[in-house]
């Protein structure tokens, strides 16, 4: 599972445990269409819309079937707030727009950092400026750096952006020092092997460290286009017995790989919030990371060693980390785990998200005229006319739908009350 999906699943589970009703809407995944219930009580609607590029569905913003489906779901489930995630998701943007026009309250969470200079950033920022400025009541970011980035690129009011960090399931990431190799120091790297994750820097640092410290071994998990660079490094420096490339590691097995290590290294070139280092710290490892994006805010200084994104500096920080571990100068892994327990938990995230939701409750409904005014202030001369046309089209389709499928005729969905779930011999009964 990717980071965002994990975030969605955990956040929904905790919100449900706190007594809220959560429904997730997404597009079809291959053959998976329809409605599914997950064990946490979460109801997922896999809408019959196929992705058309890069796991994204076609943004049919004013396609009547999309609007009808969404309207149906929102009325059936008696939804009050629509929360969209991830700037890259076309479905999130589209549904936020449609639900806002239908009169629901909307929230948007941004999980990544963006630049300003290249074409894709310029276009995405323009779109997000519209979504976040006009169609969303509140924005949530995962770190303070992410908040600064979002405010600048969306041209937003800082008071409309909240910072709620990510979290991890610390019950799953517990330390196990017995798994470590006592005769050597093991460095673990688990990441996608792409340029963005600094694999070039990693490939430079590995031979330097291996030469300087003869009792250091590497475990590298993950796959991607830069895997070939690491394999070349292994070939060139004959590190076959000291460097293990595991390939893709499933999220369920990440903890088992992490506990084999003493040090975790992260060389990313950009990160909004790095969940990987929190997972590693929770398993008791000493973390070495590049100080980019939101990373300096995530862990206190005695649990992480930060470096500039240069080969030289990463080498220096790694040397310091290896010396610390070999001299026994680092905290006990269980002490580290307990500290991380108190830092990041999904219950905390759910509670803070609920504060955002309750703030929205008091917000008054915006009329169409007010929205049009905000739209014209938000976009330029041509942009506002274009989006205005889309807005009018959407309102028009909604009026037709209200006539053809009036609200009174839509059945209300039965709420699955999971609190009364009893498990007897693998049979689940509901009382």
């Amino acid at each position: 599972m990717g980071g965002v999906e994990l975030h969605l699943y955990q956040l929904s589970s905790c919100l449900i445990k706190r007594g809220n009703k959560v429904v997730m809407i997404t597009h079809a995944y291959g053959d998976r269409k329809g409605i599914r219930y997950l064990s946490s009580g979460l109801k997922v609607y896999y809408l019959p819309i196929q992705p058309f590029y890069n796991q994204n569905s076609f943004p049919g913003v004013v396609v009547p079937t999309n609007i009808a489906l969404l309207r149906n779901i929102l009325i059936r489930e008696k939804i009050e707030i629509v929360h969209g995630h991830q700037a890259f998701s076309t479905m999130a943007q589209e549904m936020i727009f449609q639900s806002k026009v239908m009169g629901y309250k909307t929230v948007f969470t941004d999980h990544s950092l963006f630049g300003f200079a290249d074409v894709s950033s310029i276009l995405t920022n323009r779109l997000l400026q519209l979504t976040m400025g006009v169609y969303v009541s509140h924005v949530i970011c995962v770190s303070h750096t992410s908040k600064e980035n979002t405010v600048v690129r969306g041209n937003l009011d800082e008071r409309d952006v909240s910072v709620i960090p990510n979290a991890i399931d610390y019950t799953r990431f517990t330390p196990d020092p017995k798994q470590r190799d006592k005769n050597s120091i093991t460095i673990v790297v688990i990441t996608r092997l792409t340029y963005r994750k600094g694999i070039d820097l990693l490939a430079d640092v590995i031979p330097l460290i291996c030469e300087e410290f003869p009792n250091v071994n590497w475990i590298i998990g993950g796959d991607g286009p830069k895997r070939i660079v690491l394999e070349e490094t292994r070939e060139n420096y004959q590190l076959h017995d000291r460097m293990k490339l595991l390939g893709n590691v499933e999220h369920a097995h990440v903890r088992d790989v992490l506990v084999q290590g003493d040090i975790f290294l992260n060389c990313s070139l950009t990160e909004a919030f790095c969940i990987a280092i929190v997972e590693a710290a929770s398993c008791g490892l000493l973390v070495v990371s590049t100080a980019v994006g939101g990373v300096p805010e995530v862990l206190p200084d005695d649990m992480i060693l930060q470096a500039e994104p240069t080969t030289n500096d990463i080498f220096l920080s790694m040397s310091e980390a290896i010396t610390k571990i070999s001299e026994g100068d680092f905290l006990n892994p269980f002490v580290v785990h307990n500290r991380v327990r108190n830092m990041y938990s999904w219950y905390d995230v759910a509670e803070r998200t609920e504060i955002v939701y309750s703030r929205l409750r008091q917000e008054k409904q915006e009329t169409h005229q007010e929205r049009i005014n905000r739209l014209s202030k938000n976009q330029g001369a041509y942009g506002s006319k274009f989006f205005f046309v889309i807005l009018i089209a959407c309102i028009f389709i909604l009026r037709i739908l209200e006539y053809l499928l009036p609200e009174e005729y839509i059945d209300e969905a039965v709420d699955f009350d999971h609190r009364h779930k009893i498990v007897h011999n693998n049979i689940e009964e509901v009382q």
Partner: protein
Amino acid sequence: MKNRPPWQKILYKRQPYEDNFTDYDTFLAGLKRNSNFTEYQFSQLVLDSTVINNQISLVAIFISIFYYTLIQSITTPVLVGSTSIVTIVGYIFSVISGSSLSGNNLKANVRSMIILLISIWGLSPVLRSLTAPISEDTIIVLTLLFFAVHLYFQDYGYLIGLSEKYFAPVSLNAAIFASVCLVSRLPSTVHVFAIMFLAIEIFALSPMLRHHLKKYSYWLDKVSSLILFASSIYLLKNISLVFTWMYVLSVSFISVICPICLVYMQRYKNILHGPWDEAIPSREKVFFKE
């Protein structure tokens, strides 16, 4: 007045501040506007635009020489002779001024040149009949279109000295195809050979020479631009006044109007840098053993 500890930019502690609190002292402290901004100077832009004008002039010269060949104003021996002289002079210049183009291997270069000439000579009959059945109007349109593509996709970065490798396959192919289109109207195979030789010299060989000339002497390069400009006007004048004016207008558009627009638009420049930027990894290995 709440007595709470100062706000810190950290996520691992739950602070007694609401989640949308903004500490205006530190908020966006890392934002840098227009930091590495070098402003364009008008004179510099005009001088640098000569690289594009050179290319336009060369295309104009090629087309006019083709036209003169077509109406038999220039005879084939004169054309082949002058093209060869220009090639040899260019080669001698690059060898004398010590460029790395020629590779200091006279025999290999002469051999490859001879092979090239023999191939063009051998292919001339084929090239002549290649586009012969196409009507004249289509030929004119195709020629103009492909020369436009050639001008658009040319590697100006290499020509102006910014990069060291010439990489513009689209533009070279477009230029050669345009010359093949033209060549089908010529009276004999010898004419075809002469024009194709000229085309290869202008479009395939001259970029390297111009790149080297620019690196060797800035002012010599500017003088050569003037010479090309003057020659184009002189050659086009006798063909058609309309084309001469079109040429002059396009050159002045590139050299005068475009720089003015660019300098005017500098006021809208808004480069933003901050801690969210993707880092540029420095892979320099400068490490010291203690």
